[in-house]
C-alpha cells in the first residue's frame, strides 16, 4: 500500500462538479496520468493525477476539506 499526495495546498474535491460522480471510489483502479481529484487554489482548479497504477483502498479526505501540500489524499494497493 502507498499514498498519493497533494502537490498544492488548497481545497480538495473528489468530483469535477457537485453534480458529478467522484473521479475514483474505493475499490476502483487508477492508472498513471488519470485524474483522481481537484485542488482549488485561489479559485483555480488544478487536477491531481495518479502517479502510479493500483486499486484505491482509502480516500483520506472529503469534498471541501482543506489540504496541505504533501498531505496524503488517496491510498492505493499497487499492482
Amino acid at each position, binding site marked *: 500500500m502507498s499514498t498519493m499526495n497533494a502537490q498544492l*495546498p488548497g481545497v480538495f474535491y473528489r468530483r469535477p462538479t457537485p453534480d458529478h460522480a467522484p473521479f475514483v471510489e474505493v475499490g476502483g483502479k487508477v492508472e498513471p496520468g488519470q485524474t483522481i481529484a481537484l485542488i482549488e487554489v485561489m479559485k483555480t482548479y488544478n487536477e491531481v493525477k495518479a502517479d502510479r497504477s493500483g486499486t484505491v483502498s482509502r480516500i483520506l479526505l472529503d469534498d471541501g476539506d*482543506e489540504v496541505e501540500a504533501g498531505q496524503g489524499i488517496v491510498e492505493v494497493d499497487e499492482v
Partner: protein
Amino acid sequence: MSGRGRILVANRGEIAVRVVRACHAAGHEAVAVYSDADKNARWVELADEAVHIGGSPAAKSYLNTDAILEAAKYSEVDAVHPGYGFLSENAAFARAVTAAGFTFVGPPPEVIELMGDKASARTAATAAGVPVVPGSRPVADTADALRVAEEIGYPILVKAAAGGGGRGIRPVRDRAQLEEVFAGACAEAQSAFGDGTAYLERALPGARHVEVQLLADEHGGMVHLFERDCSVQRRRQKLLEEAPAPELPESTRRELGEAARLLGNHVGYRNAGTVEFLVAPDGEFYFIEMNTRVQVEHPITEAITGVDLVAEQLRVAEGQRLSLSQESVSHRGAAVELRINAEDPDNDFTPTPGEITAFDQPGGPGVRVDTALTRGDRISPFYDSLIAKLVCWGADRNQAYARAGQALREFRIEGVASTIPLHRRLVEDPELLAGPVHTTWLEERS
C-alpha cells in the same frame, strides 16, 4: 441603527478593512468575522470585536450563512455589511439576515433575486426602456436560426443555453457560416453541457465594458456617479479599470447615467449597485447585467467624485437620505485602478500562495492602496488572489497613468509572484494610453 450602531462585516480581505474603516469613520462599531486561516488578519485587528466563524475553505466560513448569522446574534450587531463576492449577491442570505432582525446593507432581497437572474434582469431592463444586446429565445433548428438571425443582424454569437463564463459561444459572421455551423454547435453543446439548446445574440466586436455606479435611498434619492471603463480584461477578469471612461462622448455619458437611473427606479433599487453596459464602436450601448453590491473597483469613482461610497451605503441602510443629489455630484480628473494579484504573469497567471517577505507600499499625491496585507502575512490558497488595489488619481488621464507608473516602481512585494510586471507594461502601453481599448484587446495581443 440610530446614532452609534454596531455592524458585522461579513467578508474578508481588503474590502473587510475598507468597511471597518467606513464604520469607524461614521461613528459605528465594527465586528469582524474570520476563518481559521485569517485569525491574525488586519481587519480582525482593526475591528472592535471579532468572531471566529469556521474552517479555512470559504464554504465552511465566509459562505456559511448559519455561522455568520450566529456571529451577528452573538455580537449583538444592528446590521450586516456583505462586502463583495461570497454571500453579497445571495438573496437567501439577505432574506435570512433581515428575518433575524438585522439590517442588510444592500438592496432588498427581491431586487437581488430579480437582477441576479440573467433572463429576469434582461426583461426588467427592456421594461424600463433600457436597451439590451439584441438576442433571441432558444431557436429550434437551422431554418429557425437563419430566420431569427435576420432580425438580430450579423455578426452574431450562437450561445449554448447551458454554457456560461465564456464557454459554449460560437461567433458567426454571416448567413452562409450560420447555415454551415449551427447544427454542429448544438451537437457540441449537447455533448459539453448535456443540453443542446442554443440561442442567438448580436456580436458586438470592438465593444467596451462601461459600467455606471448607482446610489439610492428609500426616500426617492437615485443618483448615478458616472461611469467606469473596465475593458482591460483577461479571461473576463478585470485587471485595470479607469474613470471616467476615456473619450466617451458627453452625450453617451449622460445617456448611460440616465439609463442606469431608469433601471434603478424601475426595480426599486436601494443602496449601492452597478449597472454594466457594452458600448459598441458606433456609440450604441446595451445593458448586460447589474451587480447588486459594492464593486471591487469602487475607489476610482470615489477618486473622481469625492464621494465615500461605503459611507453612503451605511447612511442609506440606516434609513437616512443620501448626502448628495444628481445635481450636486460632479467628477474631476481621472483615476485608474490596478488589481495586483498573487499570480505569475510570466507563467500563465498561475496563482502563487505563500508568505509575503517584503511589502513596501507606494505613496504620494493621488495614490491610494487598499489592501489587508502586510509583511509576514501569508496569502492563503483558500480565497481569491487579490493582494492590493492600487488606485491613482490625476488632474487628467496622463497624470493618473504617470502616477500609477511611479507607484508601481515603488511597490515592492516579495515572497510571492504578482501581476506588477504586467501592470508596469500596461501603464506605459502606447495603445492603452492613446485611448479606449475593447474587452478582448489584451488577449488578442498576447
